[in-house]
């Protein structure tokens, strides 16, 4: 280094330092290059994978599940958009307290562990990126969580299956899981079609969780389906079955209503039941559709087969006299007895019965003789032709073919067992189809429960309502699977003989008022699984019949399994269900009367004698009377009596009226919000609601409205807060008139009893909002 100032001007920068700096620079560049190679070559795949993970998410876009309609296009199952709540745990500082805060709101159902604070907390700790808090919550729950404004808690719209009528036809419809998989019933059987095809969205997500690009495949919505069910008849069937269940305390019960001229199922009710809206409470046993999956020994109802076959084969005529041998017959060493009542009847007739009388008294001895005269092969052919031992191919899952051995495997005593409905297993669907075959003039029509499917117009429901109008003949061209079993002549003879069963025989408790009816009772001993012998205490009481006799509008099968209160016989346990249901349905359908209408007093007396072991209706009637008295004798200044014009007031008033009605009936079912619904009390205690049938519900239940119905308001009121209507006078009018008039006005009807309308609430002339439920009581 120079110390001479003169040289300073040209003094070079110290080279050593310069070189040192260049050295440092080169080392630095080398470090950078090495780092680049390390990151971009050696760890490339790892980082590329990480980048992909944080950007690209393949989303499945859930398709909207298809609707299920009844034949009038009243929705039975619909899909609504609801909020699901999820969290990004990485954004939540205090997970424990957040979980507690959330659970306080979303943990609505104490039995549902999924939404408990503990489980939410556990999920929050499991993942950093995503954790469900609660799936498909009610609107008010979502609103309350939203109001908390918690960091890291988000909402996503999801489709939720919603059953507007709760447990109505639950076993037919089935339900869907949280992930939109159909479980049970039509939902399961047609899961593929109803579900639709999920869309695919390859979304890249930026750091703010906004998607910025997507390759989309639009989801295809599920097909809509129209069932053959008539929701109103279904209501009636469920109501009648509920009464029977309450009366008999049976294990389970099945009611099937069929259109005999098409084979379409109009109603299919099973008890016990469930509410498909409450997924948590559903146990597999509840899903069983006993109508197709239960095989039971039909007992005497099966006698229709040997009797009709013998008539068809001209072995006998309805008036042929058959010996009864003192009420017992030896079949290959096994002695079969007629029951006591039949034996007494037979002894009065000199141990000879006409075929007609034999069916009316359900004589085993005669049935066996007819089968023996047919011979096992011919008898088998008829059994088979009626559809037994084969699946009906009805559009329901879990159908069984029943139990029917081919003749070459029959034992010597079998020819004596099958005619009386033993050693053969049938399903309720097979049984109702047997009765329909006789009812429609002898043609087996395979049962169906699906009417239309929008298979070629996916997501574009161009469905036409197909209201049920009773036919008077079978279709000119028989549908696939249909075949004639017996001639129209034989069928007519059978119908008249079955009418005898109801008029004079074991089915007298099935008699209708103003309509002729035909049917057959049956009481089968259940096979004790433990001892493999017939149970002495467990019975299945059944009744199958149709009405009116000459041109049947409906066929009904009633099977009550193990009634434990009152008589176990089909006459007492099942036939009254037919009586109640058929009466109501025929009046609803407006089928013209073909019999003189008996005065109410006579009916009451008959009922009293016939139903000695059946009561309970009386108490309900008492409650009803009180309720009507309270509602219809309102003080003159009561808002319910508001004069026309005060529309606004009337809307509020109707609310009050509902509250009033609600307090009048200690427990209300249809007034409860859809979330809880009727399944909450499957076997209702005596109360007004046990009698009610909701008819002509508002058909335009939209998702928003459904959600807006909070715990304290009746859906009936929230639905129709629009136009006000003047309540028409229903007193003295037939049920058909009431139902049609109310539907046209947009009113809901709750129907009690049958006959003509005797009382109504709110009173005629009241201004009420559309959608109000009018309660109408009918008396014979």
């Amino acid at each position: 280094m120079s110390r001479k100032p003169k040289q300073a001007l040209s003094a070079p920068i110290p080279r050593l330092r310069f070189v040192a700096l260049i050295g440092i620079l080169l080392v630095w560049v080398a470090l950078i290059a090495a780092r680049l190679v390390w990151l971009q070559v050696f760890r490339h795949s790892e980082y590329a994978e990480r980048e992909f993970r944080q950007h690209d998410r393949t989303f499945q876009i859930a398709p909207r599940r298809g609707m299920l309609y009844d034949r009038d296009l009243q929705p039975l199952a619909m899909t609504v958009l609801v909020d699901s709540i999820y969290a990004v745990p990485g954004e939540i500082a205090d997970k424990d307290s957040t979980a507690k805060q959330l659970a306080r709101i979303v943990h609505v159902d104490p039995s549902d562990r999924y939404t408990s604070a503990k489980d939410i907390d556990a999920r929050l700790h499991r993942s950093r990126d995503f954790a469900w808090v609660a799936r498909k919550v009610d609107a008010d729950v979502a609103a309350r969580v939203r109001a908390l404004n918690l960091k890291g808690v988000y909402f996503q719209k999801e489709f939720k299956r919603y059953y507007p009528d709760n447990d109505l036809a639950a076993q037919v419809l089935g339900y869907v899981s949280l992930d939109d998989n159909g479980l049970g019933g039509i939902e399961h059987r047609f899961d593929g079609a109803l579900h639709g095809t999920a869309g695919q969205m390859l979304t890249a997500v930026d750091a703010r969780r906004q998607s910025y690009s997507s390759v989309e495949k639009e989801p295809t919505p599920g097909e809509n389906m129209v069932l053959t069910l008539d929701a109103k008849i279904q209501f009636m069937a469920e109501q009648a079955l509920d009464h029977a269940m309450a009366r008999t305390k049976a294990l389970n019960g099945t009611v099937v209503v069929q259109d005999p001229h098409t084979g379409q199922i109009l109603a299919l009710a099973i008890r016990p039941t469930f509410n498909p809206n409450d997924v948590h409470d559903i146990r597999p046993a509840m899903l069983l559709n006993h109508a197709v999956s239960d095989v039971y020994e039909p007992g005497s109802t099966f006698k229709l087969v040997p009797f009709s076959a013998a008539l068809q084969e001209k072995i006998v005529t309805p008036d042929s006299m058959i010996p009864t041998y003192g009420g017992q017959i030896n079949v290959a060493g096994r002695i079969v007895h007629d029951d006591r009542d039949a034996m007494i009847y037979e002894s009065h007739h000199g141990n000879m019965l006409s075929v007609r009388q034999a069916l009316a008294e359900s004589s085993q001895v005669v049935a066996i003789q007819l089968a023996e005269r047919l011979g096992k092969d011919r008898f088998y052919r008829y059994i088979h032709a009626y559809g037994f031992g084969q699946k009906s191919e009805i559009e329901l899952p879990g159908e069984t073919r029943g139990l029917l051995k081919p003749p070459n495997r029959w034992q010597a005593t079998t020819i004596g067992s099958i005619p009386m409905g033993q050693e053969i297993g049938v399903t309720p669907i097979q049984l109702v189809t047997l009765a329909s075959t006789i009812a429609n003039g002898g043609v087996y029509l395979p049962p169906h429960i699906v009417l239309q499917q929008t298979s070629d117009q996916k997501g574009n429901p161009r469905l036409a309502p197909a209201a049920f109008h009773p036919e008077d003949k079978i279709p000119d061209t028989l549908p696939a699977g249909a075949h004639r079993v017996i001639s129209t002549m034989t069928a007519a003879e059978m119908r008249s003989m079955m009418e005898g069963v109801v008029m004079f025989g074991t089915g007298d408790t099935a008699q209708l008022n103003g309509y002729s009816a035909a049917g057959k009772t049956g009481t089968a001993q259940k096979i004790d699984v433990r001892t493999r012998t017939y149970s002495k205490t467990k019975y299945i009481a059944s009744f199958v019949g149709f009405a009116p006799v000459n041109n049947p509008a409906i066929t009904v099968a009633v099977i009550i399994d193990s009634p434990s209160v009152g008589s176990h016989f089909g006459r007492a346990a099942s036939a009254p269900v037919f009586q109640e249901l058929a009466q109501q349905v025929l009046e609803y359908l407006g089928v013209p009367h073909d019999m003189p209408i008996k005065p109410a007093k006579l009916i009451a007396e008959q009922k009293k004698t016939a139903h000695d072991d059946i009561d309970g209706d009386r108490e309900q009637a008492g409650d009803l009377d009180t309720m009507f008295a309270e509602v219809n004798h309102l003080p003159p200044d009561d808002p319910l009596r508001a004069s026309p014009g005060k529309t606004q007031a009337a809307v509020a008033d109707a609310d009050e009226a509902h509250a009033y009605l609600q307090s009048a009936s200690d427990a209300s079912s249809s007034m409860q919000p859809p979330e809880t619904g009727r399944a909450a009390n499957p076997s209702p205690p005596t109360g007004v609601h046990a009698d009610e049938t909701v008819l002509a519900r508002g058909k335009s239940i939209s998702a928003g409205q459904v959600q807006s119905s909070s715990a304290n308001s009746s859906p009936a009121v929230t639905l129709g807060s629009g136009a006000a209507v003047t309540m028409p006078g229903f007193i003295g009018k037939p049920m058909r008139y009431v139902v049609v008039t109310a539907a046209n006005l947009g009113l809901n009807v709750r129907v009690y009893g049958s006959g003509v309308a005797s009382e109504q609430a709110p009173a005629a002339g009241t201004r009420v909002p559309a959608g109000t439920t009018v309660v109408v009581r009918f008396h014979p």
Partner: protein
Amino acid sequence: MAKRVGVDKWLFIVTLLLVLFGLVMVFSASAVMAKERYGSPYYFLLRQSGWALLGLLAMLVLMRVNYRHYNSPSVIFPCVAVTTLLLLATFFLHDSHHTHRWIRFGPLSFQPSEIAKPALVLFLAWFLQDRVDRMQDWRRALLPAALPSLLFIALILKEPDLGTALVCAVVTALMLYLAGARIKYLVFALLAASPVLYYMLFHVAWRRARMIAFLDPEKDPRGTGFHILQSLIAVGAGGIHGVGLMEGRQKLFYLPEPQTDFIFANIAEELGLIGAIFVVALFLMLAYRGLRAALLSTDPFARFLAFGITATIVIQAFFNISVVLALVPTKGIALPFISAGGTSLFFTLLSMGVLLNITREID
């Protein structure tokens, strides 16, 4: 007087390449964000192009202005004074994001700290040119040399703009070192500065977190480690060939400031190792030609000036790249020529004009 041979073509080409490359990358990095924030994907590209044009014009002019014109107190002192005033002015003008880095004129805005760097270099070159042999006299050489630097650094720190302050400090230290200052003094200065440094770097909680994050970004990948981890993911995902120009995805709100401080991560992702090495090579080339000018220049003022300009640019570049690669903690240092930012680009080009003029006298 040395003979005139024309500007260093390499340096000129490298500069043009860096500017053009920068414009392309600014567009690629900012298009999506600009579209979302300003409604036009070209927002940043247009602004940057305007500044680039302006800067290149200024460079072409300064290329032809003899650098000796600056070698006079009548240029140096006003320059230092104006810079000081501008730095002070930021504190009395509107703040953005609680910082005082900007001075705005209507739609235009510029950062006085960008002027501070060339001003400091100019001052040091002027001051050091005839004191190379007197650097042991710390009271009469070292301290007066360091004073304007300390003033600038203090003001810039106050803005606060840690990155620029750091660059100023390092450039000052390097120039003093090169002028022959004893390493002992420089170490003393570092020790004296360390409490301030510590206070600046670790006292504020979020800065401390950022400091530590670069050591182990995986520790808090969603918090303090997020930016640096996303930067590493971008670089790593680029691989050798890159994902393709405009195809980068880390810039979509994962990378912090993809068009400014982390533009190198976007380059590495989209153009891969090849693109990244290309950028490093351009700066290395710039360093080589700049230092060569400093070494071969016969005028001491030119030497210090060339060294200071080169050092400022190269240090910023490699600091920026090192931050992106998590070699050093996160600092707000832009990548010269390439990062979006008009003031930086303009004054960098201005400095290049001066440097290019110096190269005219070298063969």
